[in-house]
């Protein structure tokens, strides 16, 4: 992929002033995809087919082909069906959906409407974390504009497709970003993830067929309709096409959200896009895709690109493409403790390994951070991560375990240096 990314023109957040205003959006070709889809050229299944062919991989973290997910919805039976848009954006290091809410809300709204049409949904819910109160208001305004123009509501643009669109505020729980937990929350219940199967397409909101997509995933949909799946798959990495909103934070000179094709070399992102490590320090480590993705050593980044295949090879994941950059002065023990603290604080507490394991991890890490740990505690931590992983209802336990395992394994010397010399030889 080398340096082609340098010529890339953003499509999700193009540089157009006031794009969030529906009139500006319309002037720039907005809602054309929706109009097209509702016209005679498209059918719900042909929309699904096109999106599937585009291989828009879920931008919420799991990377599942959106069109394929839509195709799991059963045949309409005249009863309610739902699209739930996931704007919970709570994974530390992730702040990209907010960019869309603020700068191009109608692209997402249009995408959600097309998705709802393709799956014949009757209602769309937009779930946004409560901390984003200003952005919730922005979205409410944008939705009102779209209602006023007849893009949402009864018989949209004279077609027989009708859909309602509501925002719903979270109340400060990371776990409500997990899709089934979000459904519980939308139903007004405690945000406990559900046991799968049954999957939401069979048994979602109020027991009805439901599809959950991330905001950025949906924002790509109008582009695919307008320009075709072939155009989309030609961008970026073959296995994970399209552009990505990279959220870069940490010790870089120009933190922020940057839209670039997938597959950009991670070092280019840090050094060129984000202006390099602050104060000319050396790069020590980077978390590539939100706090749950395993940290990569700064000295092992040569040739690693931001797509699922390359990152898997490097021992991590693309996740939400939220990069956290750390310089040579960073205390990895401190970082890991802070991450563990987050997952401990956010475990819903439903299942045993996660409820108990996240707290145990944090407490032992705190002990090590305070210089009271012993080497055997490191092995205990690794054991605990094995005991948690793959044994819970949702992936939060995995998300809590991976950073611990990989940070210790990749920076073991630093952790050992913080431990007391134990007087006994212990296993």
């Amino acid at each position, binding site marked *: 992929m080398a340096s082609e990314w340098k010529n890339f023109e953003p499509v999700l957040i193009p540089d157009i002033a006031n794009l969030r205003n529906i009139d500006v959006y319309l002037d720039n070709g907005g809602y054309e995809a929706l109009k097209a889809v509702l016209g005679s050229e498209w059918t719900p299944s042909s929309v699904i087919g096109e999106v599937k062919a585009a291989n828009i991989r879920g931008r919420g973290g799991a990377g599942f082909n959106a069109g394929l997910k839509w195709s799991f919805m059963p045949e309409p039976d005249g009863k309610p069906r739902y699209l739930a848009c996931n704007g919970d954006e709570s994974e530390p290091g992730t702040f990209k959906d907010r960019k869309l809410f603020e700068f191009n809300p109608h692209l997402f709204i249009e995408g959600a409407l097309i998705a709802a049409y393709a799956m014949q949904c009757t209602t769309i819910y937009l779930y946004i974390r409560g901390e984003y109160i200003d952005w919730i208001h922005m979205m409410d305004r944008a939705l009102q504009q779209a209602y006023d123009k007849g893009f949402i509501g009864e018989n949209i643009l004279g077609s027989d497709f009708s859909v309602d669109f509501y925002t719903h505020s979270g109340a400060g729980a990371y776990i409500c970003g997990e899709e089934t937990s979000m459904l519980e929350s939308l139903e007004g219940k*405690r945000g406990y993830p559900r046991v799968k199967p049954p999957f939401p397409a069979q048994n979602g909101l109020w027991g009805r067929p439901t599809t959950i997509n991330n905001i950025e995933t949906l924002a790509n949909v109008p582009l695919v309709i307008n320009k075709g799946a072939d155009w989309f798959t030609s961008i970026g990495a073959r296995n994970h096409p399209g552009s990505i909103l990279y959220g870069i934070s940490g010790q870089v000179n120009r933190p922020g959200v940057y839209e670039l094709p997938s597959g950009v070399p991670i070092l280019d992102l840090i050094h060129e896009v984000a202006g390099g490590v602050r104060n000319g320090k050396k790069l020590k480590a980077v978390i590539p895709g939100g706090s749950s993705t395993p940290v990569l050593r700064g000295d092992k980044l040569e040739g690693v690109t931001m797509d699922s295949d390359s990152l898997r090879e490097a021992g991590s994941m693309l996740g939400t493409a939220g990069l956290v950059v750390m310089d040579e002065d960073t205390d990895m023990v401190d970082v890991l403790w802070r991450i563990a603290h987050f997952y401990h604080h956010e475990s819903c507490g439903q299942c*045993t390994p996660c409820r108990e394991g996240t707290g145990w991890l944090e407490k032992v890490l705190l002990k090590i951070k305070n210089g009271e740990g012993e080497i055997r505690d490191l092995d205990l931590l690794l054991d605990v991560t094995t005991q948690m992983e793959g044994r819970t209802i949702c992936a939060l336990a995995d998300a809590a375990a991976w950073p611990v395992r990989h940070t210790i394994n990749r920076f073991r010397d630093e952790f050992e240096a913080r431990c007391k010399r134990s007087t006994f030889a212990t296993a």
Partner: protein
Amino acid sequence: MPEVYIDGERYEFEGKPKLLQFILDQGLEVPYFCYHPSMSIPANCRQCMVKVGQPVRDRETGEFELDENGDRVIRWFPKLQTSCSIDVTDGMVVKTQESDELVRRAQKDNLEFILINHPLDCPICDQAGECPLQIQTYKYGPEGSRFEVKKVHKPKRVQLGPRVVLDAERCINCTRCTRFVDEVSKTHQLTITKRGDSNYPITAPGETFDDPYSLNTVDLCPVGALTSADFRFRARVWEMNQTPSIDITNGKGCNIDLWTRDNLVLRITPRHNPHVNDWWMPDKGREANRLFNENRISRPSVKIDGESQVKSSWNNAIETFVEHIESVKPEEILLIGSPHASVEENYLLTKLGNLMGWGTPHFTPHLNEGSGDGFLITDDQAPNTQGIRLLGLSENDNDQLAKRISDSGISCVIILNDALIDRNVLTEDLFDDTCLIYFGTNENKTSQSADLVFPITCVAEHAASYVNVDGRIQRSFPAKETKYSNRRLNLEMSEGRLDRYGTKFDNWVTEDNKVDCLPAWDLFALIGMRMGLDIEYEMGGREVMDEIGRKVPSFEGVSYEQMDDESGIALNIDSKKVKSKN
């Protein structure tokens, strides 16, 4: 028939069972906490992990693929599965802790997790001895703990409601209690609060957990987090004897267990019967232990000079009975049976009446209209209204019965265990000139108004049958000794651990806890003998029921054996004649 292989053994199955339930039904074991057969499946404790695979089939032919040894090629699920939540499917291959090291590890790891924040205060915990966490830990848990940091602290001794106390530190967050109030009692009074390892169940602020079924959560709770305010700290479970019985506080006849120590009923818990109460019972039924222990009529009493009652010997009481009877004409005697007494007792009263020419006993149902909830609480306040209808006792409205006594030249009324004055069916002044003879279990205004009182055994002291509102006949077992019964001689009485293994110092025997009373069959036999009748029942209630089964058509063929085998028997109740209201 579809098949499943569990630890190498082949089993056939029907329908769509869940794997854990299927395993348990085969008499095999997998440890679990959150699963309950009558509630939804949250799969949150993660204890019931097993390894599951499916045989690989050839895409084209549909045949099983075989390996070089001719065995089916199995595709294992990449992760261990919770057996409670997974459906058994045809050809499935399952490995439990019996045959797989990884499964054993996972179960052990999970128990280690559960225990890290558990207070481990078994020595002072009511649940100890019947605690699934204790049992599973001994069987499948780790030997020690590697947890050397600080445990989470949570509220203790929280009075959730009038009857239930919470120790949040012991809670393992299985959500059985919250699911119960959501799905079974439907009061939604409990919810889990906070997150992660700070979780615990609680009511909404300012609300109290006064669910009429609240104590079921104490039974459901797999640890000692929820305890009964009444029972807590009163006994270790292994000190008690457990005896099956029937709830007599309303018409549903919930199946229960009586837990006794030293001849006191210390607690009552529901016993599973899918035909009646499933696993549940109303809280009110649990308070009946006081009826069995307190305020009992012990030794007969006779009234002297129409004034005060004094205790009397049995001989003297029987002589007094005969004197009263002989001083009036048979048609001046009115017998009143009782929906609160068993089929056997009412039958014997009827039989005595027939033999002596006193006529058929009357009765008044004990209803509290509107108090039923369509679930396990019935309008009917008595356990055997249907039973005495089927026996053919004569049914009266509340007013009718009083009129019968005042208007029709009645001089002597014999009441079988029914507090008719207390429940305002009769008044004390009816007995100013009329003799009242009372056969009863507990002191009340009615017994205190009587000229002669005979103490009889209560449901906790005898084997006897009751027909519930739906026409199901079910029976009790003797749980408490009386002055005249002996646990070691009565084969129907349960033998507790201490009876069997204790030293003489382990087994309390407080004479005062034994009531001086007789079962109706023994007492009526004594009275009958005195009056020249032969109504002896050497085998007690069992023999009475055999006779009823021969003589009363509605009870044809009914026997204790059949009731025991089938957890009660549905009798044919004529729905037109009998209003079976909840």
